[in-house]
């Protein structure tokens, strides 16, 4: 699974996710990526893209839950991202990671696995790439 979230100079937010799903999945199985609110979400508060055991992200509506934690719970983006990745998704029977960016351009990155291929670019600063925990 691959994904991207962005906040542009005008303050707009967007998210995109694309995947082949899981290896040896039953034909016809659909995970969280194309389900809006589960693996992909963007509103005026945050943009979110998820990766991992899709069924767990669907069961807890992970991407939308991250936004709700910020809008209703007042959590900052990084704390909301960590809450979903490290608490909600495991409680729903799976593991994986999320990337997020809020309306101020602040990033959120969290994953409950040993690694996640990830990159961060703040316009005007050097790009940051990471793989392992």
């Amino acid at each position, binding site marked *: 699974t691959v994904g991207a*979230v*962005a906040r542009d100079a005008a303050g707009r937010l*967007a998210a995109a996710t694309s995947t082949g799903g899981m*290896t040896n999945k039953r034909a016809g199985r659909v995970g969280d990526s194309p389900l809006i609110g589960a693996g992909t979400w963007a509103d005026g508060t945050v943009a979110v893209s998820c990766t991992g055991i899709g069924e767990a992200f669907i069961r807890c509506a992970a991407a939308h839950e991250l936004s709700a934690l910020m809008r209703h719970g007042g959590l900052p983006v990084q704390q909301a991202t960590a809450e979903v990745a490290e608490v909600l998704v495991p409680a729903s029977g799976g593991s994986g990671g999320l990337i997020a960016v809020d309306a101020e351009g602040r990033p959120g990155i969290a994953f409950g696995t040993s690694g996640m291929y990830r990159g961060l670019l703040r316009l005007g600063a050097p790009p940051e790439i990471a793989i392992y925990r």
Partner: protein
Amino acid sequence: MNATLLIHGGAGTIRREEMSEAREAEHRAALTEALAAGEAVLSSGGSALDAVEQAVRVLEDCPLFNAGRGATFTAAGSIEMDAAVMDGMARMAGAVAGVQRIRNPVRAARAVMERTPHVLLIGPAADDFAAAEGLELAAPEYFRTEHRWQQLQAALAARRIALDHDLPARMG
């Protein structure tokens, strides 16, 4: 101007000891290329939606990541892809699921959002929609990689359904 872009290429059991330096360098180069594609949009005042679409397209075209070319296999030995986009300002969303012929599924997801009243189109009808909209299609062998085929054999032998990174990286 807090323009910001984040990308991911999947999470899982990614073990340093399993990854050769060369392979890690390949992954880092692809991630850097994806960030650069998004940065080109943002630095010219482009939209967040265009930036995420361009970044994801780079990763879909890279056989190292599980999307587009290099997607994983189903138990039936087929490749079925899913993608979604969402525009936070307009609160608009588009997605495709179970597609098999669209070179860049993220572009089809955006076409569903911008050119239909729907949010999600699935299966062969979604492939046909993309073709009718002039999106680039590709033959099944375009998406196929030996690395993922070997991962499927390992998963079948282990009777597992696995994340793309949860099978030994050195596969075939």
